[in-house]
């Protein structure tokens, strides 16, 4: 058995190589890059700084539009039926630049990307420049002919935040039958089909049913995405309770073992995972990380804004301008990249800081302070409670001495 390298790019530590079967990105050291016949890089002339960002993101979320007819109550991009969209030409320009930078994957989404009649042209262009296009969709209105064209994508995930009535409660309309039909149609033409499930306070108890659906339809993954109070979601009181935040990682493991399915948790769940103290070495090897915005990940909004992630952060450039992404990348994204260096307590003393990176900036920003520790992190909650208790105890214990 051999793992053939289909693409590679140099990094300060060595490089990243892409393998097609199984589909994987491997970080390798400089010696391995040389052994694989990769050309020498000027990046290898000096020692690699431990906390330097990647020379380009490995994946970019291309928010093709804020256009969607579904009107989900918690839509994080605030999509409407007439929302703005990147044109085909703009999307092609962005993809050309990302390809030149060495980006491996794009996640195409919206809005509802399938509502754009040029979606498949965007995907085909991504393929033509060596980038794997992946897709998130609600599946609404997907027919058999469209499903057949979806072979162009790598991974396709359909959003299913609950089964049956659970779907309606989570999204505000009765669309489960459409989503299930889309999953069946897609699974009939390709294997890399999965489910995205937003885990909110009210959908938490329905995760078992969603996992069962993934097993029944023989899908290849269940991705659990933490509810973030942004976009229309900011109006909802749906963030996980402290108890749910502590239970999500053990629950994900249980779902994986019970249903024999692959389960992933998105980057914003990192604090909830690290609270259970997994092996830091294993986590580093498997790429388990918290906020990787402006490092592993970037996003392009329909208005052209280049962002660290599609949920938060200042616009770093107008991605529609040729050369703007490449120019902004090396010195930009300081609000994301600077967190570890200047982390406040309790992140500062956390042994997982370099992996967790303070949790989700979007959630922290939604609570009023972009650079604060993630308020949904169990360690942060415990520290806050302890500080409040000590302060209260101190007030009663210490006499006030006035001169």
């Amino acid at each position, binding site marked *: 058995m051999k793992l053939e390298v289909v693409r590679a790019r140099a990094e300060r530590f060595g490089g990243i190589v892409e393998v097609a079967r199984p589909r994987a990105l491997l*970080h390798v050291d400089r*010696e391995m890059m040389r052994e694989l016949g990769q050309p020498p890089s000027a990046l290898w002339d000096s020692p690699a700084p431990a906390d330097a960002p990647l020379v380009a993101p490995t994946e970019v979320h291309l928010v093709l539009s804020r256009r969607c007819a579904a009107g989900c109550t918690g839509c994080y991009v605030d999509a409407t039926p007439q929302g703005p969209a990147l044109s085909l030409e703009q999307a092609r320009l962005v993809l050309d630049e990302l390809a030149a930078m060495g980006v491996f*994957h794009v996640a195409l*989404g919206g809005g509802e990307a399938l509502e754009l009649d040029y979606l498949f042209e965007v995907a085909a262009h991504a393929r033509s420049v060596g980038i794997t296009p992946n897709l998130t969709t609600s599946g609404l209105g997907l027919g058999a002919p469209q499903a057949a064209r979806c072979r162009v994508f790598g991974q396709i995930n359909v959003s299913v935040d609950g089964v049956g009535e659970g779907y309606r409660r989570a999204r505000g309309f009765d669309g489960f039958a459409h989503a299930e039909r889309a999953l069946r149609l897609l699974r009939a033409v390709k294997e890399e089909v999965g489910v995205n499930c937003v885990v909110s306070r009210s959908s938490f108890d329905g995760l078992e049913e969603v996992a069962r659906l993934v097993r029944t339809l023989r899908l290849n993954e269940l991705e659990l*995405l933490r509810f973030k109070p942004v976009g229309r979601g900011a109006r909802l009181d749906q963030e996980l309770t402290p108890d749910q935040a502590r239970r999500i990682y053990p629950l994900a493991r249980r779902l994986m073992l019970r249903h024999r399915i692959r389960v992933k948790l998105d980057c914003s769940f990192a604090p909830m995972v690290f609270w259970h103290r997994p092996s830091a070495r*294993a986590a580093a090897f498997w790429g388990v990380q918290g906020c990787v915005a402006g490092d592993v990940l970037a996003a392009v909004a329909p208005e052209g804004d280049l962002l660290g992630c599609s949920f938060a952060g200042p616009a770093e450039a107008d991605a529609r301008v040729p050369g703007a992404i490449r120019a902004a990348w090396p010195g930009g994204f300081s609000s994301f990249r600077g967190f570890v260096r200047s982390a406040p307590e309790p992140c500062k003393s956390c042994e997982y800081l370099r992996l967790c990176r303070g949790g989700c900036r979007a959630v922290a920003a939604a609570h009023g302070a972009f650079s604060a520790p993630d308020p949904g992190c169990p360690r942060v909650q415990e520290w806050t409670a302890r500080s409040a208790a000590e302060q209260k105890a101190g007030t009663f214990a210490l006499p006030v001495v006035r001169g």
Partner: protein
Amino acid sequence: MLFRKGRVLRATFGCNPNSSSLGVDVTFLLFGATFASALALVLGSLLHRPPDP
């Protein structure tokens, strides 16, 4: 080549279709650091230089 001097430092499998990045693959995190180290050796030995065009 069975063993190489070079090392695999990190491995992520699959593609992420989402707006938020892939954070934790629960499947792999079940295995500890020893398994990860062994797998790094195996992956390194299987990596293959693409044929020259």
